[in-house]
């Protein structure tokens, strides 16, 4: 019998539908209320301006989170190496973009390909064989931490612990509707959101997406019903890797690169994943964006030095209140 995390007590607000729908509606209602209050006290302009910063941050979280959540959905593995995979993408882009002088877009694509490759090697060389041997949750979790260390070791060895910067224009801004948006920021938002929406549509409407869902519902059942699970798992890793690579590049475009920056993004990415309901790609997308915006908005009312803390506080709060997530579909936890 799986453990059932249940809440005691009566169910208020039953008219809003089942508990998952209720959670989603309440979350958005609460968010709208916060927005409203902030607009009243801080002004529309400030709130919108801050939200834009939040969206670019959120797009990065979401890119990392979708990969993490897809892998979790199918393999039930919390991949602690996700953060460092992301960092690896950033450094590959640095190699192509700065060392070799290739255009940024080409560098980003190279990074995605390379990290996808890391995902493939990780799965085929390590995780797949270990699962076949019947490795437990803890065993795989610790392997993923080991892989995280190795990736960070390679990064540190090649590129040292010094800060690195991608060759992007960080100072150029555009004025839109009285808001100033950094060029790179705009790029992060546009690229991030469009890639994520494309991935989302792909997952929802293609055969591949259907198969992934079948696997994440029940791996064994999918296997017996004739789906080539090995292949689907591999493709999932390719997705997760490519998205992590892209997330790393995008993060590198708006901040500096240092070996730990990927790991530092891991916990906010966890938060996005949990917020969205672990295993749910759309949930992760919204979770990432929402978290990014909430974190940035918090700077309107509290000292910005606390903003990273907000991410963790949100994560812990969601785990306490509703571990099955606020946005995605229901799952037992």
């Amino acid at each position, binding site marked *: 019998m799986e453990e059932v995390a249940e809440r005691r007590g009566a169910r208020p607000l039953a008219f809003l539908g089942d508990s998952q729908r209720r959670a989603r509606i309440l979350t958005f209602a609460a968010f709208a209320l916060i927005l409203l209050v902030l607009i009243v006290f801080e002004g529309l302009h400030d709130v919108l301006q801050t939200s834009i910063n939040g969206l670019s941050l959120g797009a990065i979280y979401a890119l990392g989170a979708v990969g993490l959540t897809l892998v979790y959905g199918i393999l039930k593995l919390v991949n602690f190496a996700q953060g460092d995979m992301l960092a690896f993408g950033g450094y590959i882009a640095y190699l192509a973009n700065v060392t070799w002088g290739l255009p940024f877009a080409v560098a980003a694509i190279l990074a995605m390909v390379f990290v996808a490759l890391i995902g493939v090697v990780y799965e085929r060389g390590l995780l797949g064989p270990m699962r076949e041997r019947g490795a437990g949750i*803890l065993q795989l*979790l610790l*392997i993923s*931490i080991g892989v995280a260390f190795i990736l960070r070791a390679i990064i540190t060895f090649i590129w*040292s612990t010094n800060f690195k910067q991608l060759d992007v224009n960080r100072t150029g801004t555009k004025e839109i509707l009285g808001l100033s948006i950094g060029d790179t920021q705009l790029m992060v938002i546009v690229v991030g959101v469009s890639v994520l929406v494309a991935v989302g549509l792909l997952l929802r409407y293609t055969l591949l997406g259907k198969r992934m869902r079948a696997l994440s519902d029940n791996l064994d059942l999918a296997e017996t019903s004739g789906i080539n699970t090995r292949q689907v798992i591999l493709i999932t890793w390719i997705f997760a890797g490519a998205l992590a690579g892209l997330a790393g590049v995008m993060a590198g475009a708006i901040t500096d690169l240092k070996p730990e920056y990927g790991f530092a993004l891991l916990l906010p990415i966890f*938060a996005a994943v949990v917020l969205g309901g672990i295993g749910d790609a759309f949930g992760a997308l919204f979770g990432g964006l929402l978290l990014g915006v909430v974190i940035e908005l918090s700077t309107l009312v509290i000292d910005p030095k606390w903003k990273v803390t907000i991410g963790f506080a949100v994560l812990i709060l969601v*785990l306490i209140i509703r571990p099955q997530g606020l946005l995605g579909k229901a799952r037992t936890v």
Partner: protein
Amino acid sequence: MDTLVLGISTSGFNLSFWVGVGVIAGIYAIVALGLQLNVGFTGMDNFGMAGFMAVGAYTMAILTVDHDISFWLSLPLSMLVTMGFGLLVGLPSLRLRSDYFAIATIASAELIRLVAQNAQGLTGGNQGIFCSDDFSRCYDDAWVKVSDTINGWFVDLGMSDPPSALPLLVVAWIIAILLTVALVRIQSTPWGRVLRAVREDEDAARALGKNTVGYKLQSLVIASAIAALAGWLLALNLATIHPTDYEPIVTFFGYSVLVLGGLANYWGVPLGAIFFWVLVEGTRTLEIFESESQQVALRLFVAGAVLILVMVFRPQGAFGKREEMMLGD
């Protein structure tokens, strides 16, 4: 991370250097003993040890420096505070499935660390707490006296210039060994048996009338008390308390030590700690690389390789029983 190891030149056999390694090994033995209780014997994948260590160290120092409480009294007090944090973290998160529990604990630890980093007034923020020039913020005076006394004995015994960390080495390992003995004994009682049952199958334990949540809480609170011990020792060793000393990597290294020693085996832990740190620091003495970055990389590489290789080839660790890893699930 670099602060974890004494920055001592490493050519030839260097007693001070290896004493420093021994202190670190002792501290990590203690950390991993706490993990062993949670992970190996209760089945709780606690990833928050670093956070509890921070609470122990900071509370000890804040009580001594800002509240004029004696160092010796600050120890039990800060341990109690740390246990309170264990309770606080455990109460809401214990009902979570194991991977969620892992995330919840690592997030709690990071939250603690970030608060330490930003609550300037309380913790010294990014400056940390250390013996400043005017000696107003020295939390370790009492210990330094004891340490000098102990080194005096070593001199009396004929040692010409005992390394300054030698007394800490002695104390850390006395604590580690006593703790191991205590944990082995308590594990062999019916109380320990219930813990193992909780690890195996909580539903089965509950069906037999065991308050599993209560036992998990006890396990976590004891582990946080143990983390406080490790936190103090780390603070005494570094002579400074700084947020970066309590990053998640400390917990991860604790896990490396744990799996090397083997799950569900307390005596494996101190051996695993020695093995791990000799491996990690020993590779430094080989002087393969010159730059500091490359040294950092090497250490990460060794730690990562240990985790992967042990999990792949010998999941029960060096001293664990094979059944402990294979029969489960």
